[in-house]
């Protein structure tokens, strides 16, 4: 279950981040960012498991992937902005 979302501006940083996470052995999914997580229109999101979140954030930072926002998906499918 992927319940934590890192939003990125476009598909390219998303792909770079995805590759970095997969190389580190973390499962993730690259997808179009849900509208609720994107303030500037079209964007992409890297979805990871909540347990992997801190490590994922560190990996993305190290890879130079600029994260626009961090979101937690609630059980009802809505999102809340989150901080580590």
């Amino acid at each position, binding site marked *: 279950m992927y319940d934590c979302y890192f939003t990125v*501006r*476009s*598909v390219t940083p998303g792909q*770079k981040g995805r590759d970095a996470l997969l190389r580190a052995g973390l499962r993730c999914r690259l997808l*179009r960012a849900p509208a609720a997580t994107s303030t*500037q229109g*079209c964007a*992409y999101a890297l979805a990871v498991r909540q347990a992997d979140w801190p490590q994922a954030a560190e990996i993305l930072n190290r890879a*130079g992937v600029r994260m626009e926002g961090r979101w937690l998906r609630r059980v009802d499918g809505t999102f809340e902005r989150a901080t580590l």
Partner: protein
Amino acid sequence: MIYLDNAATTLRKPPGVPRAVVEAIRSCANPGRGGHAAAAKAGEIVWQTRVLAGRFFGMEPERVCFTANATEGLNAALRTLVNAGDRVVISGLEHNAVTRTLEGLGAETVPVTAPIFCPAAWLERFEKALTPDTRVAVCLHVSNVFGAVLPVKEIGAICAQRGIPFVVDASQSAGLLPVRPAEWNAAFTAMPGHKGLLGPQGTGLLLCRELPAPLRFGGTGSRSLAQTMPDELPDRMEAGTLNVPGIAGLGAGLRWLSSQDPKRLLERERKLLAAAEKGLSELGAQTFTGPEQLGVLSFRFPGMDCETAAAAFSDHGIALRAGLHCAPLAHRTAGTLPEGTIRLSVSAMTTPPEIEGFLAVARKLRRSGRT
């Protein structure tokens, strides 16, 4: 046909290139836009090619921007750096892709001249020309007319010392010589995808170590509500739908090159050129040669119009290119204006029997007085 016009475009590609193009046409939608499988597949192809190119040229993948050709990349670089009246120092071998762009921008273009095949002289002349009021320096890595290799690393070092942004045109070297923008201190390095990189026409790369000004404005699949272009690469340089089939083919070309021994490829091409040069010299042709020459051999037969001679070769199935090669400045520097030269250019796909076939036709034409 014996195809020896590879400096214009490489006609024969590794088999994976047309396969990748066809596969992309059949299965790829718009990358970085929709979230469906066909868009995701296109996005993966574009990303994988970006990663491959990044590895090939020592760049972070997002700093590899896709263009339609080297000309577009050079336009983007020069439009970023040059304003009207700026002094821009260029090599005297530059292509119209550089000189016309600078003319269009109203720059004060200062061509540096030196003996074509003397890297030390080029370096010395650049060093003198790079005055404190120089805004930008531009130099090609390899001449598209003569195959001369210019000392871009050393010129780039001088530019870095003096705080002058440096732009490199790697059109004739990419795929054959190491292209290393970071080692050259090059702000921008432009190249086509359809020459030594063995991709399809309509592809090119701009390697950006600085942030370029957008050449085109429009949709990028990102930050759609904002009405200014994104400030990050590659989106800033890639408005509009990308040439996904072309990029897929370019990726296949890069994969093929990555599987080869670059030193062997280089040595092989140099042997082909040396054989052509020897045969032409024996026939009384004037040839333009020097150490470290790469990919291209210019020649002409005394007293014979170059275009007429190239047409005679074409009648016998030999594809060469005569004239000025879109580089009148290079011909002025070499003293080969107004008629230019005939240019023979090889690729990784050229074979020794093709050079022998070319020389057999040259001998035949020489005997018949057509060259």
